């Protein structure tokens, strides 16, 4: 740490982030404790559990399902889910005839308040470049083979609109409570790359 030579160009991202955080903290622009709080929020609290609660409620409460399909932003705010990247949310429902798949071909638009931050594969070139041109191929990679007669609809997210897939409620879950249903709804099913499976007895 002597002399005027900075080797930030050669150092890895961890060192660059550390340097940036030091500069911004010194300038009083950020507070490391506030940064810790955001990290904790998105690592542990804002995540697909939120979306799972929305889906379980839609499965068990027909009036809520209607409101969700009419205005998802408003309907998820009703149960307390709002925040950055949460505006203009659209819920799309899977049926026996239609399967919905969500992608962001440009980069990584994703409904944070209900799903948290996107997983690595969602942001990958492999997923973004193929979801529109070969959705069935992508679904097959996820182990999901759909009957030919099922129409696959691909939704390309943007800064303006994000999507939440309402997966089909699996057979055999008729007697499960809303809370128990929320436990079986997965993130992948709400992006449209998986189905929800009924728990094995």
């Amino acid at each position: 740490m002597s002399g005027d030579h900075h080797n930030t160009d050669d150092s890895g991202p961890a060192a660059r982030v550390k340097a940036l955080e030091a500069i911004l903290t010194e300038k009083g622009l950020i507070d490391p404790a506030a940064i810790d709080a955001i990290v904790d929020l998105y690592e542990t609290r804002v995540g697909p559990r939120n979306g799972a609660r929305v889906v379980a409620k839609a499965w068990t409460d027909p009036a809520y399902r209607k409101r969700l399909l009419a205005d998802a932003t408003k309907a998820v705010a009703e149960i307390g889910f709002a925040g950055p990247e949460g505006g203009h949310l659209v819920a799309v429902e899977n049926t026996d005839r239609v399967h919905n798949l969500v992608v962001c071909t440009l980069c990584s638009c994703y409904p944070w308040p209900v799903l948290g931050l996107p997983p690595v594969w969602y942001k990958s070139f492999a997923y973004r470049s193929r979801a529109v041109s070969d959705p069935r191929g992508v679904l097959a990679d996820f182990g999901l083979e759909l009957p030919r007669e099922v129409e696959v609809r691909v939704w390309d997210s943007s800064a303006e609109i994000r999507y939440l897939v309402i997966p089909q409620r699996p057979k055999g879950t008729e007697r499960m409570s809303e809370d128990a249903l929320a436990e079986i709804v997965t993130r992948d099913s709400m992006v449209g790359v998986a189905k929800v499976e009924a728990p094995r007895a």
Partner: protein
Amino acid sequence: MSTTELNSLIEAARLDADHVFSAPWEARAFAMALKLSQAGHFTWDEFRQRLIAEVRASDRIRARDGTSDNGEYYDHFLRALEKLLEEKGIAHSH
């Protein structure tokens, strides 16, 4: 952009379903960008435009060379943040 590549990412996600950050620096870069935008130093849209530009440049190289990405999304994210902070005169990285 092969099936194999997507499969390995899917497998990684299966092993660690809640995994959103691969390293602590990714989380801190994300949190700093969000905090600075919430404090009004730039809008999230301004940041997003830079991020899209970084991702697009990388996509072009991948499409040309037929190479795969290895989850370097946050490298693009960090570069976008550094460039934006430099443009805004908020912080210079070098």
